């Protein structure tokens, strides 16, 4: 097989790929937002003091981390309806990827929170601060700088995992490349361009995360 790259074809499919990239970014963004919030709830829930809740949350996190994402996507999309929960591909996909990454993010938060010295908690108690204010004003701000690299890794991770959503027909970048391939029988250009687009987004994001970490540390005077 010969290597024949067609520029004309590449330019022709680029608009369609870029349009799908917007969907990919949206999927990653919404999924990440879900993961950030649910992940924090998972991390704080484990510290609530309730043994039963802690155990249940740990089981959930273990389950999510030791089964493939694609299975979780299928499960929500295909098995959900049997329990009366019918969701569109988009909603299923966002939910699956958001919950999946929430398990990983909760571990990032947990490590960050545990790295805050015990003396800080005791100082808060001695000042009679509420648990809420202790987290909000003292613990989370100190846990944040250490958590940013992990949070950044998973932002890039969630972005790279969005192609999995193509298995249930979410019209993201991978799905667009697949359709182009099956319509034109040309795979080289669409898949190469998918790679280039992913690279062009991932690399700067990783760099920005780095800058952000340095900035947050400076801002907190640490």
């Amino acid at each position, binding site marked *: 097989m010969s290597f024949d790259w067609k520029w004309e074809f590449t330019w022709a499919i680029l608009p369609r790929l870029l349009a799908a990239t917007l969907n990919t970014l949206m999927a990653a963004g919404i999924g990440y937002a879900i993961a950030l919030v649910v992940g924090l709830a998972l991390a704080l829930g484990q510290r609530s003091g309730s043994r039963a809740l802690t155990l249940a949350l740990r089981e959930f996190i273990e389950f999510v981390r030791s089964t493939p994402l694609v299975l979780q996507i299928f499960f929500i999309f295909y098995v959900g309806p049997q329990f009366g929960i019918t969701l569109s591909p988009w909603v299923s996909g966002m939910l699956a990827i958001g919950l999946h990454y929430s398990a990983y993010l909760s571990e990032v938060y947990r490590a960050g929170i545990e790295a805050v010295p015990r003396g*800080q908690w005791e100082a808060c108690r*001695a*000042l*009679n601060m509420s648990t809420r204010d202790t987290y909000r004003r*003292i613990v989370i*701000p100190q846990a944040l700088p250490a958590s940013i690299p992990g949070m950044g890794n998973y932002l890039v991770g969630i972005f790279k995992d969005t192609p999995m959503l193509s298995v249930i027909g979410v019209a993201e970048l991978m799905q667009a490349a697949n359709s182009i391939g099956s319509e034109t029988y040309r795979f080289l250009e669409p898949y190469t361009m998918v790679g280039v687009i992913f690279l062009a987004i991932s690399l700067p994001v990783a760099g920005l995360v780095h800058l952000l970490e340095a900035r947050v540390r400076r801002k907190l005077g640490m």
Partner: protein
Amino acid sequence: MDMSAYPLELPENDRPMVRFMNVTKSYGSLTVLDRLNLDVRRGEMVSVIGPSGSGKTTVLRMLMTLETISDGVIYVDGKPLTHMERGGVLVPADERHLRRMRASIGMCFQHFNLFPHMTALRNCMEGPVQVLGLSEREARTRSEELLAMVGMIDKKDQHPSRLSGGQQQRVAIARALAMRPRIMLFDEVTSALDPEVIGEVTNVIRKLVAEHDLTMLMVTHQMGFARDISDRICFFYKGQIEEQGPPEAFFTSPQRERTQQFLRAVKDAD
């Protein structure tokens, strides 16, 4: 445990600022405080001394409600701190009760525990704003006054990492005082300091003794300082008070064998 032996409230004519009543604290099979009884009068300065591991820190931590109680009751200003009344009996305090009672107690720690992401001023303002609900302006005025009192006003905009140990401890004292406690606890506040800055901190505490009507409990290894400023010395040994008394009598003629041994040992170490 049988709570009926403990009054729901101490009678008007017998209300020390703090009363430890048969207070026991154990970790598993290790008994750290053993049926401790201790009264601290309003405005009294009590120094707690004793060998390492004798339970000195634990006494302060229990009063600050950083530890739960295994047995007994602590009363603050006549009201139970570690317990609350439910249907005519004392039951272990819930968080709401603790928050109400804790308002009158402040504590300074050996390692300062300042908030590293906040300036000295913000460290002091944080409690008044978040807990007492003061406006930013009121809290700033109050905090600046206290920072001036501890000699730290010109460093108010520095973060703790830019301050020496002695400076951090002075900020920590100002931070605790900003909550207007009636009882102040000091746990070896000079032990982590370089010798040449210990005076900065002890001078602040001297000032508090002279100018405020605070009730104070201080754990210290500085015998000279304790003798100077205390109304009473309590010598702890194995979770109990082995001997106590006014400083002059305590240091010149200790009665108990263990007290004498301890005082000889610290004198030799100096």
